[in-house]
């Protein structure tokens, strides 16, 4: 077992465990902290897939900003233990769990079947990867972003502006935070 393989299994384990932690922890603060852990693990997975820049962005944006926001809000609310952490109702609960189970089973099945029978086998995939070359140069990413997909990029900028305005409008206090009188 080489280091890369070990790394993958380790990260996969971390991701799944901390992901389960998000859903299963009764205290939302622990949920949020495990989600942050998941984010960092996902960033590490990005690194194993050689998407270095996006790994950095994942940490800065998700772990560094979005999740801090979550944690901050939770701490502000000061929610301790939840009495009713999960929904009740046996029938719907069973359907929900079944849905999730079947869905994950289907996807996993589809992936394994699709990749080994319908498509190329692993050796071919591996050779195809070598032929295609490594895509992650940050330069390549920026060229694709700012030249080919510049319209989407601009649209995202507009979206962010709208979101910023909307968020401020939603959460402002009457008279503004700097009201003098």
């Amino acid at each position, binding site marked *: 077992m080489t280091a890369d393989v070990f790394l993958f299994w380790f990260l996969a384990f971390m991701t799944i465990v901390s992901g389960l932690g998000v859903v299963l922890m009764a205290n939302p603060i622990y949920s949020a902290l495990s989600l942050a852990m998941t984010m960092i693990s996902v960033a590490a997975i990005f690194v194993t897939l050689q998407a*270095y820049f996006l790994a950095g962005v*994942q940490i*800065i944006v998700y*772990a*560094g900003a979005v999740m*801090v926001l979550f944690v*901050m809000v939770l*701490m502000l609310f000061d929610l301790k233990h939840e009495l009713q952490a999960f929904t009740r109702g046996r029938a719907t609960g069973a359907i929900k769990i079944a849905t999730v189970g079947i869905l994950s089973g289907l996807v996993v099945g589809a992936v394994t079947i699709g990749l080994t029978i319908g498509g190329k086998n692993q050796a071919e995939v591996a050779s195809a990867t070598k032929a295609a070359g490594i895509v992650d140069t*940050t330069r390549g990413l920026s060229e694709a972003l700012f030249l080919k997909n510049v319209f989407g990029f601009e649209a995202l900028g507009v979206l962010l502006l709208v979101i910023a305005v909307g968020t401020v409008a939603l959460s402002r206090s009457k008279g503004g935070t*700097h009201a003098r009188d």
Partner: protein
Amino acid sequence: MTSMGTTTFEVAVNLIKLVLVFLMMVQLVPILVWLERRGSAFIQNRFGPNRVGPLGLLQLLADAVKFLTKEDFAPEKGNRLLFYAAPVFALVPAAVAYMAIPMSVPLKFNEYTFLIQGYEINVGIVFILGISSLAAYTILMAGWGSGSKFSLMGALRASAQIISYELALGLSIVGIILLYGTFNLSEMIHAQQGIFSFNAFGHNISASWLPNWGIFYQPVGMILFFAATFAESNRLPFDLAEGEAELVAGFHTEYGGFKMLMFFIGEYGHMMIASGLMATFFFGGYSIWNLTPQEVYQWCFNLIGNEFWAGAMNSLLHFLSYLVKFGIFLWIFFHVRWTLPRFRYDQLMDLGWKTMLPWALANTMITALIIFVTSYYVL
């Protein structure tokens, strides 16, 4: 990414190096504390610690012993898990980020090349920014885990401040990243070595008496970056997380003993990262004024005659150069703390969002424009 080497020897050396850099960072803290106390005393016309040992140097040891032997208690209303985890998390990101900063030219030994830094990372800048942005968790964990309203309010202030200044911090160095076209710290230092020289409109412009440092290209970025790092490390004039009158000591109000010490190390670690990055981005990293490492190596070789020892001396000289720059910035941190008054919180936020962010944006745009114009057009 990063590789620990292939042979056992290389891996062993790299691991030892990792530990050494970590220890260096941790061990610098007491020295810096002493320096800060003596320095502040000097500024305020006092003596400072001078009883224990020569020049009060052993005071540090005494403090450490005091911290270690203090009672280790946790507040009753708090969350014990987070309360104990927070100091550890304060230490880890700072150490991890600090280790990615190169401190000298790589040392060649037989067929091996050892980098004088914890480890090298391809997208080092993004990595360091990302890791140091995790500091907000520590603060929130400590603040909430203490179960005290002063801690919580201090934590909210501090983390909001860190997130806000993260923007200005990140944007202020976009200019320098554009300039050198790399996220790699070593490459960035490499690009700043030698004499001041750049290409514009198809001509080369150079000045042999100046080093090729980033500050000459990005003065605005430098100022913004330095100011933002003050806010990031919660130092004066931006230490709004603390306040005797309203918040006591902010998020670490409830901490004492060794856990307190770890927060201290974290704070000083942030200062060290900031100083190291300042040197790396804007002052040529470990490079010596306007000389390239090859020139220095040649000089060493002429002096000694042995390739390995000449290389070692070369690395040592550059390491000293790095330390000088590093020390100067740390001293500026101290000096600012003891000379400038602090801001009010709304002023702090105004400064971050309404002043530094627009300037950083303008700096980015103008830099991009100038780079484009000067490289695209030939006169």
